[in-house]
């Protein structure tokens, strides 16, 4: 890419796999898992976080030299809260049904650990352009996991993707259901998300032995 130097590109690409915020840094699980029963909600959540983290990182990075370090947490919280209010109002205006589904979890982006983590670890020490890339990269890494989890939970739990049936009709017994396949209702309940993420971590760490934790 001519636009990005190799170093800048790594800022975006690293968090997608080997430094993923959810599976490696263990951040931002809080608001993520409860909404992944549907792919659509996962996607909207991912986009919201990309917006908040991208813009927030730039704002904090621009202000990094004027924020007194003692009150920086409060300043950061105010910046995130403002951005989240924007997201919430936009969702309420253009996707009311979806904002009902997400309910309080949009508000909980404020306390999403990824956001505070990136502000603290990166934006306070780097320029706006780099911070922007870092923010987008980490939010994408978060979004990727969210979408993977959402994909499997919706496909196996309801047999649909984005609400569109892809495996046939469970009541009329068409498609895959004609062979005796049943939806796994287990995938819809909240704890299944944790198990799916656990399996993702398992797969990722089996492929990349360097990530295995010491016993």
């Amino acid at each position, binding site marked *: 890419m001519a636009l990005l130097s190799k170093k800048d590109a790594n800022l975006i690409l690293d968090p997608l796999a080997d430094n993923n915020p959810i*599976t490696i840094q*263990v*951040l*931002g*699980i*809080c*608001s*993520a*898992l*409860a909404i992944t029963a549907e792919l659509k909600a996962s996607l909207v959540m991912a986009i919201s976080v990309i917006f908040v983290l991208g813009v927030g990182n730039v704002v904090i990075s621009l202000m990094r030299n004027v924020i007194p370090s003692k009150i920086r*947490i*409060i300043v950061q*919280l*105010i910046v995130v*809260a*403002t951005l*989240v*209010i924007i997201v*919430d*109002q936009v969702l309420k205006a253009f996707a009311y049904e979806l904002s009902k589904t997400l*309910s*309080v979890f949009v*508000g*909980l982006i*404020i*306390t*999403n*650990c990824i956001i*505070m983590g990136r502000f603290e670890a990166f934006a306070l020490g780097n320029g706006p352009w780099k911070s922007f890339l870092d923010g987008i990269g980490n939010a994408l890494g978060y979004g990727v996991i969210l979408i993977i989890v959402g994909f499997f939970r919706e496909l196996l739990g309801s047999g649909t993707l984005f609400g569109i049936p892809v495996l046939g009709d469970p009541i009329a017994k068409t498609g895959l259901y004609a062979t005796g396949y049943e939806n796994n209702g287990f995938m819809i*309940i*909240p*704890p*299944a*998300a*944790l*198990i799916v*993420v*656990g*399996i993702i*971590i*398992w*797969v*990722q*760490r*089996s492929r990349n*032995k360097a*990530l*295995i*934790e*010491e*016993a």
Partner: protein
Amino acid sequence: MLEHLELFFKSIFIDNMVFAVFLGMCSYLAVSKKVSTAVGLGAAVIFVLAVTVPLNWLLDQYLLRDGALVWLGPEYADYNLSFLSFILFIATIATMVQLVEIVVEKFSPSLYNSLGIFLPLIAVNCAILGGSLFMQAREIPSLGLALNYGVSSGIGWFLAILAIAAIREKIRYSNVPAPLRGLGITFIITGLMGIGFQSFGGMLTGDNEAPEPTENTTAEKTIEEKEIKKEIEAKEKAVSYNEVINK
């Protein structure tokens, strides 16, 4: 009285902060390696939730919700400031956490020493903001119930982190597949515990229906009681096992 009791058990077991809505997962995973630290953080969470939820309830009731400003005069009845709730709630929480820290440091240095490091962490714990946001979303009707909700959901979180910390202390001696070690197995255990907690859903009828305690057959109750007993027994076993190892 009955509604207090109902809300209390509902927030601890059925709508458990960790197992049902995944709040406070970051600190739940990060601080659950040892039982003693888990107890410290859990106590701090109960404390802060007990303070911030009622405070935010007052804020919501008299400032934010649709028509809340009517006490200023009839011409204010049309104002709806609820879009400000995120920023006001988080500001209240951050301030209260600071204030609690100062007060505790002044009056109870020993408590401060045990809670000290955890208090600042709590300002960004999703469980705290989540408590206030759920309080608003579920339209809890009175200040007493809001206090009850804060305390009981704090206790639910405390129980969850205590249980996982005890399990993690024990699992160190088990032979977990290498790629699952640490984080992976913790996720899966939490998931399984969550499924266990789902069974508490039978204690009450659905979310929106009126609770009918008489509908719960005694058979269901005894099964649940057995489950609780089993859990307690398992925990006690884990504790005694740990004591043996420590010796």
